């Protein structure tokens, strides 16, 4: 029997259609501007606290559209962005640093759809506004830092093993150990074999020397670790910034992509993400003369620093406590109202601090603020990566008594600096400096503009094609139009299921799909017309038309697909979004334009005598 679909085929098309409608539906519901509050500590927000926040918001005169408290997270929805911003300000002041207050766009998908796992597409930054950063991790610095660490560890180990050495120096990527006596060399090699297996050993001519190099494998590990450590730190910092749905992803070997939807203050975001700020505590060297040090005679166990006002100061080479031993930091004010940072140390740091302060009461101690700043400059037409380690003594104070775990540091310029420093200390240091190599910011007005324009051109383009097809191919054209709508539904449904990010080029891809996906139908219909002209009966013209067109469609669509896949493989960001919609569109258009239209045509013309086709 010609032009009749078995039941399973009809059901398949209808089921796919049904699923497509369900999963594309969430995109028709809009978003509510909302404020999201969550705890940064392990303790979640309690019910009473949530109730209190709710009544506080209501007391401020803002109407809350909905107040949701779920799994220790508060989501307050509002009917406009003014209310949202007002409450955001209010809560930010109220909640303090233990909570994250973030602006969000909460989808209004009804619960029954959410229960089915149907969610709206995620809007890209070009549609919702926000900022995109690409950060490059300075791998050389990571390797150099590791070398420094090994250098220090080696000295410690040699001292621990009572092995007397002349020097441990870094030279051209090698760490060179010169022993006091060549007789100690076998013992040194044993020690290295036991504790420093990650170092490659070279034995030079000079019998009292051993040259060490960090092994290739270890360098790779160090670099890998630097990236993953940086990602963790960046995630912490972003959480501190209060961004609702940040995206932090590794890209390539040494780049990290950070997307912060809704963030407008890019200067602050850049400051927080890019700086490697930390603190160090050192004793002041009071025994030597600073003036001599400035002239170039720095004592062996000391280092020369400068205070904020430019005064030179000599500090002990050994560090008491470094930034990574800080477990918590919060900003505040000291008794005199100066901005300060309250520091809490971990066990190791606390013990070291106690030990030092016990023997040093009455001596001055300095706080060194260290900041790595990296930027790319053009010098004589050459791109030069400029790295700067800014070390400043921000505070020198006499140790009044023994302290260990908790204490306060002052000497910061402004409350803003105190806040930023405490945030950075809390979030942890970056394992290696990062450099912003790409930045894209989209303002919220442009985002909405892009959505509106994208939608308008989609609707108009769709309507034009529908009209054109209906006029030219009559009933068959109408059926093709049904398939076209079906195709759009499926593309949107699949994109939603994948939770793909919709971008402006993505919308353009969908629009382009609309124009191209009727191609399969044009091919089929032209073939049917041709078969009719060749004297075939309407029924067999339909049958042969579909059959002959199929091979052509397969070949022509497949070439298109090859190109789209290449585009996906090499595209970045929004171009990838374009490629994804193109790929899905090509595949689903083959289903809708061939099987979908055939089903309807079979319903209309199948199983009966037909004199004339409306084509």
């Amino acid at each position, binding site marked *: 029997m010609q032009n009749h679909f078995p039941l399973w085929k009809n059901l398949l098309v209808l089921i796919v259609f049904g699923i497509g409608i369900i999963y594309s539906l969430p995109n028709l519901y809009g978003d509510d501007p909302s404020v999201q509050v969550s705890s940064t500590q392990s303790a979640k927000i309690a019910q009473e606290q949530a109730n209190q926040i709710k009544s506080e918001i209501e007391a401020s005169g803002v109407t809350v559209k909905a107040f949701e408290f779920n799994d220790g997270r508060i989501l307050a929805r509002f009917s406009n962005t003014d209310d949202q911003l007002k409450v955001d300000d209010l809560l930010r002041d109220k909640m303090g640093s233990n909570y994250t207050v973030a602006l969000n766009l909460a989808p209004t998908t009804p619960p029954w759809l959410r229960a089915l796992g149907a969610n709206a597409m995620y809007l890209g930054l070009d549609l919702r506004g926000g900022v995109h950063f690409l950060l490059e991790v300075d791998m050389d610095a990571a390797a150099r830092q590791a070398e420094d660490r090994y250098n220090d560890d080696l000295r410690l180990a040699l001292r621990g093993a009572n092995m007397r050495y002349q020097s441990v120096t870094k030279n051209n990527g090698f760490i060179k150990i010169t022993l006091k006596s060549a007789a100690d060399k076998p013992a040194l090699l044993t020690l290295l074999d036991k504790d420093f297996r990650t170092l490659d050993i070279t034995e030079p001519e000079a019998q009292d020397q051993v040259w060490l190099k960090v092994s290739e494998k270890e360098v790779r590990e160090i670099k890998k670790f630097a990236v993953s450590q940086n990602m963790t730190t960046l995630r912490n910092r972003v959480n501190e910034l209060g961004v609702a749905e940040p995206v932090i992803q590794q890209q390539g070997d040494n780049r990290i992509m950070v997307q912060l939807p809704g963030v407008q203050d890019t200067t602050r975001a850049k400051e927080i993400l890019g700086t490697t700020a930390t603190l160090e505590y050192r004793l002041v060297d009071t025994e030597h003369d600073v003036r001599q040090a400035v002239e170039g005679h720095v004592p062996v166990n000391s280092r020369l620093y400068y205070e904020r006002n430019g005064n030179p100061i000599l500090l002990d080479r050994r560090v008491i406590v470094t930034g990574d031993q800080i477990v918590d930091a919060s900003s505040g004010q000291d008794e005199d109202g100066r901005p300060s940072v309250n520091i809490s140390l971990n066990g190791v740091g606390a013990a070291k601090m106690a030990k030092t302060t016990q023997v040093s009461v009455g001596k001055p101690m300095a706080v060194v603020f260290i900041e790595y700043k990296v930027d790319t400059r053009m010098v004589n037409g050459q791109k030069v990566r400029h790295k700067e380690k800014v070390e400043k003594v921000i505070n020198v104070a006499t140790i009044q008594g023994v302290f260990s775990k908790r204490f306060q540091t002052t000497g910061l310029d402004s409350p803003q600096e105190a806040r930023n420093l405490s945030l950075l200390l809390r979030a942890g240091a970056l394992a290696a400096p990062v450099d912003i190599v790409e930045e894209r910011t989209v303002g919220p007005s442009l985002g909405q503009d892009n959505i509106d324009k994208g939608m308008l051109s989609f609707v*108009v383009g769709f309507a034009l094609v529908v009209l054109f097809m209906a006029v030219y191919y009559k009933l068959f054209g109408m059926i093709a139009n049904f398939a076209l709508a079906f195709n759009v539904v499926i593309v949107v449904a699949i994109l939603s299921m994948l939770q793909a990010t919709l971008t402006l080029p993505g919308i353009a891809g969908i629009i382009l799909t609309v124009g191209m996906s009727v191609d399969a139908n044009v091919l089929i219909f032209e073939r049917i017309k041709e078969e009719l002209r060749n004297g075939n009966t309407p029924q067999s013209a339909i049958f042969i038309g579909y059959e002959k067109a199929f091979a052509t469609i397969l070949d022509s669509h497949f070439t298109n697909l090859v190109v789209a896949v290449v585009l996906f493989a090499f595209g970045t960001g929004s171009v990838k979004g374009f490629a994804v919609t193109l790929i899905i569109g090509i595949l689903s258009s083959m289903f809708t334009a061939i099987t979908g239209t055939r089903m309807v045509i079979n319903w209309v013309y199948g199983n009966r005598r037909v004199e004339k086709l409306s084509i």
Partner: protein
Amino acid sequence: MKTTNINFIGNRNIALIFSGVLMILSIGSLAVRGLQMGIDFTGGTLIEVGYQKAADLTVLRNTLDAEGFGDATVQNFGTAKDVLIRLKLHEGLSSADLSSKVLEAINKTTAEPASVRRVEFVGPQVGDDLAEDGFLALLYSTVGILGYIAWRFEWKFSTGAVIATVHDVVVTLGLFSVLGLEFDLTVLAAVLALIGYSLNDTIVIYDRIRENFRLMRNKTTEEIMNISVNVTLSRTIMTSLTVILVLASLFFLGGEVIHNFSIVLLFGVFFGTYSSIFIASPMALLLGISAEDLMIPVKEGAEIDRTP
């Protein structure tokens, strides 16, 4: 539409000369004028700001000049209220906070503070990477297609299709160069999409030529090509028209950001359609395609039987 009987292949020399001239002009313009590369590939900073009233570009230019941003280009973007400021990678100034410095500068002289619509900064390394990826994408898609068509059809066809596609890309880029339009990432994506489209068109005609080679044993290659181009002509025009309809809607309503993207595709669809009719088949003919090249009917026949 009745089946036409236009002697496309017989008059191929006219088309080949026309295309040859177009290609020479395009390559000439690309060599002399080059493409105006966007910051995606060159690196640099781009700032789009909006004002309530029409912006005075001269004032903005003078301000930027006075503040040491003499190399900034300032132009309207879409409407008189929107302004696009472009800066090259800056000597001696950290590129990451260039944008905030520029904004500070222009807000000094204008009565109304500019509202930032978008800021894009691309570092030199990223620009190089994007350019390299873009070039590789073009290369790999060309090689992939060459292979696929050679496998599905025959190498003469595949070479013809690639020549036609290269023609479309070169002429489109040439037009971009002549008109001085900016070439950025989305434009590159459009160029790749255009490759797909142009091939799609070509394949449909090739497919019919292959079919007719097997059906019409007593006709010359030239006749078969002519018949094939003519019977598929209405389809070629119909599909191009629907695509042009959506592209026109994207061009007129899609906004400034997507403008160049739609221009590439509009050019591309036009040339793609032209080249699949006038270039692809004559090229295969010039390469000496004949019926014998495509006589492997046993396997093909089996495949067709299985289709619905």
